[in-house]
């Protein structure tokens, strides 16, 4: 069972772009044992950005792979693959199969019009799925993520801007730049909701491209071209069963809040409990006021204080990204006026992996795709190797790839279409009893 599918993960941690591209492709082909992949998912950290590094990386990859192999991917904060956990390097997940049909659809300008981009991809995937001889359809959705403006004189990872003038300029700038410069919030919830409406029978997971969590840049790869504002969707049509699961590992606390006023597409909270949001948030969390003077404190603490919403019995999460003046910038957008603070420990977010993998524990697994929130990566650090061990135990000799992204997507008929944060999402392909 599954003999018609060969997949493997190649890896390189070379710092030189050319070498990294060549070596990751060579490593992949070696692991594919002579099979020529039809599709290669290529994910890189941001470190090859300078001096046309990504173009060189792709030239290296496509120069080694035989002509006609489709290569798509982009920048992520890190990845977990059979070779280990990495926040530097490039990984290539290659697939050869005569029992899976792969299709790729992409659309540009997603910041300006995410719905149009999603519709374009959905229409292309529909055509591919309709001509597929296989029964189950899956979509991996990979949008360009949120980008923040880099302000001269303000250090990287600054999370608090107290100046009212600068804060107001940032808020106005975010909205204008989204339309004119196509930089700013990704509004990816529109993408997953549109894809789900158009392809209701498919299952989906996804996640947004990012840099090293500074949020200034992200890049997308399509064959030998580099993009910055593209939605990539990968269609997988197969007779394999596809198990899609989404887990948080977060626990609701007794700290409730009412979000009274938002702006910027629901991403900027202006008032909580009827008063300016930033001070009220500190008060709810029992954090001292001096935290607002220290971006490092805010940066380290907000990861452990996600905001939770329960909408129609479904859990949604936002992360606090910035404090601008008296307001709080969150991502993804606020889902409900009624919210509560959530909490997570390292144990809980690792336990989420066990919960997620439970229903494919004894299955005849072929391969696995995983999207995991960058917050989990930042929280776990080197304890990501605990997750790696769990994945190795689960997949045994079968390949898998976890990409660390900024904001995750999931859709099944049961779960619904969700844009979430702080989550661990799997799509595990396995042969059921019938094959």
């Amino acid at each position, binding site marked *: 069972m599954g003999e018609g599918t060969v997949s493997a993960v190649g890896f390189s941690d070379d*710092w030189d772009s050319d070498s990294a591209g060549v070596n990751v492709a060579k490593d992949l082909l070696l692991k594919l044992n002579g099979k020529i992949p039809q599709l290669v998912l290529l994910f890189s950290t941001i470190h090859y950005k300078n001096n046309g590094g990504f173009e060189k990386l792709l030239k290296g990859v496509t120069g080694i792979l035989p002509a006609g192999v489709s290569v798509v991917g982009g920048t992520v904060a890190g990845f977990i693959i059979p070779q280990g*956990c990495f926040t530097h390097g490039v990984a290539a997940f290659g697939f050869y199969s005569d029992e899976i049909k792969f299709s790729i659809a992409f659309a540009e300008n997603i910041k300006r019009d995410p719905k149009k981009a999603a519709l374009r991809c959905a229409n292309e995937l529909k055509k591919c799925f309709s001509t597929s001889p296989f029964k189950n359809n899956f979509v991996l959705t990979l949008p360009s993520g949120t980008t923040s403006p880099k302000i001269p004189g303000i250090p990287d990872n600054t999370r608090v801007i107290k100046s009212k003038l600068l804060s107001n300029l940032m808020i106005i700038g975010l909205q204008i730049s989204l339309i004119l410069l196509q930089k700013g919030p990704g509004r990816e919830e529109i993408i997953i909701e549109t894809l789900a409406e158009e392809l209701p029978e498919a299952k989906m997971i996804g996640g947004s491209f990012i840099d090293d969590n500074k949020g200034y840049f992200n890049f997308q790869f399509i064959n030998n071209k580099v993009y910055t504002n593209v939605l990539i969707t990968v269609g997988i049509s197969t007779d394999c069963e596809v198990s899609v699961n989404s887990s948080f590992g977060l626990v609701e606390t007794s700290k409730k809040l009412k979000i009274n006023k938002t702006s910027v597409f629901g991403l900027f909270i202006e008032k909580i409990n009827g008063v300016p949001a930033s001070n009220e948030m500190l008060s709810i969390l029992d954090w001292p006021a001096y935290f607002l003077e220290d971006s490092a404190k805010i940066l380290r603490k907000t990861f452990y204080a996600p905001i939770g919403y329960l909408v129609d019995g479904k859990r949604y999460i936002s992360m606090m990204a910035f404090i601008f003046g008296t307001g709080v910038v969150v991502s993804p957008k606020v889902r409900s006026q009624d919210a509560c603070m959530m909490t997570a420990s390292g144990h809980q977010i690792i336990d989420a992996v066990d919960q997620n993998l439970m229903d494919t524990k004894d299955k005849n697994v072929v391969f696995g795709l995983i999207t995991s929130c960058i917050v989990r990566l*930042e929280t776990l*650090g080197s304890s990501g*190797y605990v997750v790696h061990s769990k994945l190795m135990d689960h997949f045994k000799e079968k390949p898998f790839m976890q990409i660390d992204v900024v904001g995750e997507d999931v859709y099944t008929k049961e779960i619904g279409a969700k844009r979430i944060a702080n989550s661990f999402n799997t799509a595990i392909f396995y042969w059921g009893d019938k094959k």
Partner: protein
Amino acid sequence: MNKKEDVNQILTNLMKMDDVLACMLAKQGLGGVIPEGIKVKDVNFWNLVKNTTNEIFPIINKFFIYKIDRLNFELGQYTIIFAPISQNFSLLVIISSLSNIGLIDVEIENSRRKIDYVLKNVD
């Protein structure tokens, strides 16, 4: 290449991470391996770090059987991270306090594992 050159190469690569300001393989009794290109601008601070690493080893040794994983010193501007390799060696890394420490910690761990391999296997 010998052990020192291999370790130096691993440290040189770790220094290529934007937020890594300095790193070294610290050795009990002082000494160790320091790559080129240290980015810490405060020379007095860097000298203080180098001269006090030896004082960390009694603590590492006391907690070694409890699998001490990291010793972090969160200062105002800098965070100093000790990633013990053995009772005699520790990887020391200095990052900016505004860094994404979790992301860097993954590559600190990869470097720590590579150095551990070199120390155990390379002649």
